């Protein structure tokens, strides 16, 4: 058994190769368009991994994570564009605001069983869209805010090429994945797993479901807010439609579902597959046909639910188990 590629040295070797492949990507990709896509993979992969902490691990489907993303994104552009402050200060601010919103939504809904959490999170989205549109002094209204061009550098998060930004995004993705893996294997992870599999039994096992879900939601909101902040810095622009877009939530859910919600690496895998595919599709489909790409996402969601609810990760784990005799 020891010689099988399941043992620790093999695993570490695999992680190192994956890390090297990730960080060397700009070298062999060369075109800045490809690197830009990779930045999106990292940012949305990180955000989807964040969504998965509550949506996948605890099976509490949030349809409002766009809000945390948008809060983070607005924080950066407002700090840089309106207030002239460092984007690095915007990140903690975004986290704090997102966590406050998360607590307010989780507090009543996690005391209830049933559909209330999903309902409440979805209802949150139009509210923030309204606020961002109306509060013109802060957000620039529906026109949005653009960040002025600043001297490039780490302090301004503006660069001449997308490559430096890619490294920042990649570091975020790696950190978030480490967090997700750590949670999976932590006390909280086991509790969330119990809640996901059998809420009734987890109460009998002494699990405080409310607290476990709250912890996961807070972490989740914080992670997504950071990804949003970097997204704002990357675009150097934000308006209500971009920040509080229903598509963002959809993407976070979809990446996680495609990759496999039970796995810490599932959402990132989903992003890696779907984002380039989506970019390719939207380059090919123009005008009204652009909607067809999104339509395909909807079809994909339904097919996944009906036929492969565990995503690619689920398929992979079956193959893995057959090959190695071990569970993933």
């Amino acid at each position: 058994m020891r010689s099988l590629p399941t043992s620790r040295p093999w695993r570490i070797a695999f992680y190192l190769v994956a890390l090297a492949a990730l960080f060397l990507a700009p070298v062999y990709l060369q075109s800045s368009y490809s690197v830009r896509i990779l930045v999106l993979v990292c940012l949305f992969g990180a955000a989807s991994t964040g969504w998965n902490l509550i949506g996948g691990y605890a099976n509490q489907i949030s349809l409002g994570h766009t809000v945390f993303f948008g809060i983070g994104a607005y924080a950066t552009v407002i700090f840089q564009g309106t207030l002239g402050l460092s984007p690095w200060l915007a990140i903690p601010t975004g986290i704090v605001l997102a966590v406050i919103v998360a607590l307010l939504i989780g507090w009543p809904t996690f005391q209830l069983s049933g559909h209330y959490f999903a309902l409440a999170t979805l209802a949150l989205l139009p509210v923030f869209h309204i606020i961002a549109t109306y509060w013109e002094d802060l957000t620039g209204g529906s026109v949005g805010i653009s960040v002025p061009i600043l001297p490039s550098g780490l302090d301004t998060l503006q660069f001449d090429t997308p490559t430096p930004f890619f490294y920042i995004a990649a570091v975020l993705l790696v950190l978030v994945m480490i967090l997700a893996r750590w949670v999976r294997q932590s006390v909280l992870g086991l509790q969330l797993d119990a809640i996901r599999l059998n809420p009734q039994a987890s109460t009998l096992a002494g699990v405080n479901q409310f607290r476990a879900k709250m912890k996961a939601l807070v972490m989740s909101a914080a992670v997504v807010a950071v990804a949003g902040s970097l997204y704002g810095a990357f675009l150097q622009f934000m308006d209500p439609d971009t920040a509080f877009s229903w598509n963002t939530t959809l993407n976070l859910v979809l990446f996680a579902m495609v990759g496999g919600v039970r796995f810490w690496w599932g959402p990132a895998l989903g992003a890696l597959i779907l984002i380039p595919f989506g970019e390719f599709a939207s380059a090919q489909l123009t005008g009204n046909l652009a909607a067809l790409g999104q339509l395909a996402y909807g079809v994909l969601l339904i097919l996944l639910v009906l036929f492969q609810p565990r995503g690619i990760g689920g398929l992979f784990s079956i193959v893995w188990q057959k090959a190695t005799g071990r569970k993933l």
Partner: protein
Amino acid sequence: MDILNHVAQSVANGLLIGSVYALISVGLTLIFGVMNIVNFAHGEFLMVGMFGAYFASTAFGLDPLWIAPLIGIAGFLLGALVERTIIEPIIKAPQSAQIIATVGLGIILANGAAAIFGNNFLSVKTPYQGETFSLFGLHFAATFVYAAAYAVVMAVLLALFLNKTRFGKAMRATAQNRGAAQLLGIDPKRMYMVAFGLGVALVTLAGSVILPYTLVYPFIGQQYVLIMFTVVVLGGLGSIRGAIIAGLVVGVIQSLSTLLLPSELQNLPVFIVFFIALVLISGGVLSRVRNASVKLKRS
């Protein structure tokens, strides 16, 4: 005196718009009450109804108000088809799967509409769009009055169906105890198909009815999601009568808030109502709702 008049006008407007809110939400609560599924695509079905009426109006010159019953029938067929293909397989699946599947359905509908009609704001022209009625010194736009009249008629028809017909009673029986209904020879799958069809029929009909006073575009469903959810949560998930009352309440609150707030912010108080309802439910104040056993009582 002037202020009093403003308030009265506002409340009256709120009741008109509120009855429409009840109409667009009642199908959502009907589906939940019978099947225990939240249809997250409900807003998109509203949009489908609006586009159906838009198409009938621009292609054949038919008035949305006249065509509405036909749109409702088409909506019923669409809903029944969707139930059979997508909902039926997940009726016993975990809640998360049901959420994702209906969300996926909504995405298909919205983007399907975008592919056909383009991502534009569209509207129809009707001869009565500028007309108003006056009563007791209050003024009402004809389009709102007609829409509200439809809502009242549909509420009455729905109540008659559920309380007076054999089929409606069998549907309520299935909602209250699926297993026992089955033992009596009632086919639950058939009931679910009809319930989902009816829920979709009501909301597509509503889409047709509201078209004369509003704009339609493929992603408008998202705009109505907040109102629909507030209405069904406030009324108690699965309670028809609750949804109707809550629809009126939400309409009045929203309308009154425009006296104080700019009209762009009229959904903010709606959200506050939604949030307060959630807090009250979780605090056990609306404990009736908490049991989620509010199963299609008398409407």
